């Protein structure tokens, strides 16, 4: 027990560790560079597909922002993706806005809708002290209701068939209709969101979220407005999903209730889990990987994919609860220990 509290700290000790470049950031940089090169080697069809996949990856990133960092699972996250998509579609198809500005207006509406719904629901639930499994159930019910509204309110949403004729995204002067342009738009949005998230969450904000996750009461005794922090994270996560959904609609040209469906909500959980929740870059990779698998399995039979997901969830819990990357790491370690172990 040495110096008193006010004693000069000029002892020359180093400042708290500066933010090193974490492995996740390095992987992210490599990933983005590789993806940026893709249009040079692939045909238009693949590029269009990847444009969609990258937006789904942005959606997964949004979920990981909340689930991975607070530990609370949002089971109905497709609600926000769908709100973004429908917001864009309704604005550009139903409202008679000047086509030059319609996509931007649609984007704004989509993102704001997603964030607003998250705010209202989150405000009531988080400030009411609801956490963990209860919170998950509420988001699940929210997803069911959103889906019902999308199917039932056909005057606005087009019901079961949805809405077609969503124009490609454009800002005055630039159109992203071409597959390559659309691809770079998606990659650009994903990269910005990814790097910003990594940067912010590798710093103090990330520590605070981890602290709240460990012991929310303790965090409050340190002075943190924990409900507000959780709410802000939830809204940001929803806004990101909404952003992904809105641009996604401009790429495919239509929206249908399966964009706001429970199945999509569970698929995104799979993408995040496969990549490793909490890593931010993992879910992006997970989306790309799983999406490939999804395409192949779905083409075999319509029922095969839900059964595959169902099985995955069960395996996820029983075999690799920390996500696939952690499981593989553990497996590798065990194999290595077995090889070099004593005889």
């Amino acid at each position: 027990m040495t110096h008193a509290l006010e004693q000069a700290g000029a002892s020359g000790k180093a400042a708290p560790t500066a933010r090193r470049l974490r492995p996740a950031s390095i992987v992210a940089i490599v990933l983005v560079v590789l993806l940026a090169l893709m249009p040079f080697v692939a045909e238009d069809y693949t590029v269009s597909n990847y444009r969609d996949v990258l937006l789904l990856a942005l959606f997964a990133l949004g979920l990981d922002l909340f689930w991975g960092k607070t530990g609370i699972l949002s089971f109905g996250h497709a609600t926000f993706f769908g709100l973004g998509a429908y917001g864009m579609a309704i604005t550009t198809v139903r409202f008679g806005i000047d086509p030059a500005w319609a996509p931007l207006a649609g984007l704004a509406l989509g993102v704001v809708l997603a964030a607003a719904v998250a705010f209202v629901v989150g405000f009531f639930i988080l400030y009411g002290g609801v956490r963990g499994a209860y919170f998950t159930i509420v988001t699940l019910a929210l997803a069911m209701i959103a889906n019902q509204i999308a199917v039932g309110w056909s005057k606005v949403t087009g019901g079961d068939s949805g809405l077609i004729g969503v124009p490609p995204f454009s800002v005055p002067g630039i159109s992203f209709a071409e597959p390559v342009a659309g691809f770079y738009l998606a990659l650009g949005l994903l990269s910005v969101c990814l790097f910003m998230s990594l940067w912010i969450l590798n710093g103090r904000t990330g520590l605070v979220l981890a602290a709240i996750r460990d012991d929310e009461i303790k965090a409050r005794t340190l002075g943190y407005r924990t409900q507000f922090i959780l709410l802000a994270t939830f809204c940001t996560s929803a806004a990101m999903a909404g952003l992904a959904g809105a641009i996604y609609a401009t790429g495919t040209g239509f929206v249908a209730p399966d964009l706001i469906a429970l199945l999509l909500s569970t698929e995104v959980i799979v993408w995040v889990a496969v990549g490793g929740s909490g890593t931010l870059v993992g879910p992006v990779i997970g989306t790309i990987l799983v999406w490939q698998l999804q395409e192949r399995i779905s083409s075999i039979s319509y029922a095969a994919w839900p059964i595959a997901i169902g099985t995955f969830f069960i395996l996820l819990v029983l075999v690799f609860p920390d996500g696939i990357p952690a499981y593989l790491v553990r497996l590798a370690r065990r194999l290595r220990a077995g090889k070099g172990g004593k005889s």
Partner: protein
Amino acid sequence: MQLALPMLLNALTLISILLMVAMGLAIIFGLMNIINLAHGEFVTIGAFTLVAVQAAGGDFWLGLILAPIVGYLFGLVLERVLISRIAQNPLHVILVTWGLSLIIQQALQLLFGPEPQRVTGPFPGSVTFGHIQYPAYRLFLIAFALATFALVIVALRRSRFGLDLRASIQSAEIASVMGVDPGKTNARAFALGAALAALAGVLLAPLTAVTAFMGVNYLARSFFVVLVGGAGTIGGVAAGSTIIGGLETFLTYQIPPTVAQAAVLGLAIVILRFRPRGILPA
């Protein structure tokens, strides 16, 4: 009065169904503190039992008897094989039961085909009260459901199992020290919940088109019954069912059903904000 009585009876119909579906959920949640997302599938299984029975030439009453038995066995197996291993982690239970529900839905669809199935119930035609006609089957449903509910309450109060169950809900530790086997109690409670849900499915089947996905709707509502009413108590389930069922029925008369459901959800969320443990928690 012209409109009020049918609406009241419709509300009672929904409340009765919710009561049976939610009762099992409430017991399981109050006892094991886990959330079973495959609970809706028990309802579906009950309905499909009736479909199978009628396809094989049997009648409604056979289905009514068989369905809870099928539900009970199913629930028992599920609990022993899967749930008991992971019951300590609510999130794991959510994921596993959700996965299971996806598999069950697809399996049912593969077995019975994607077309909605129709079953025939007893008591076709209506009963007349003064100026009003009301479907006789629905009256039967209400009476049967409430009678079952009363029976369950009596059984819980009087039987050995019921005592074990209620003691375990209060405190599993103390109960086990008194000789209550937690594994058996959990398994039986889970199976009972499944049986009740399956029974609800049979009763429900003549009123609607039976599809592999019909259970999902009841899942959400029954969860809210438990969350709003309070988990682990009979009073809670009754209160929650009355509120959710009554409100939804009333609103459906004023606004489209989908909006009505959304409104009820909204109200449930608001209630949760002020009473996070429900109105009448254990």
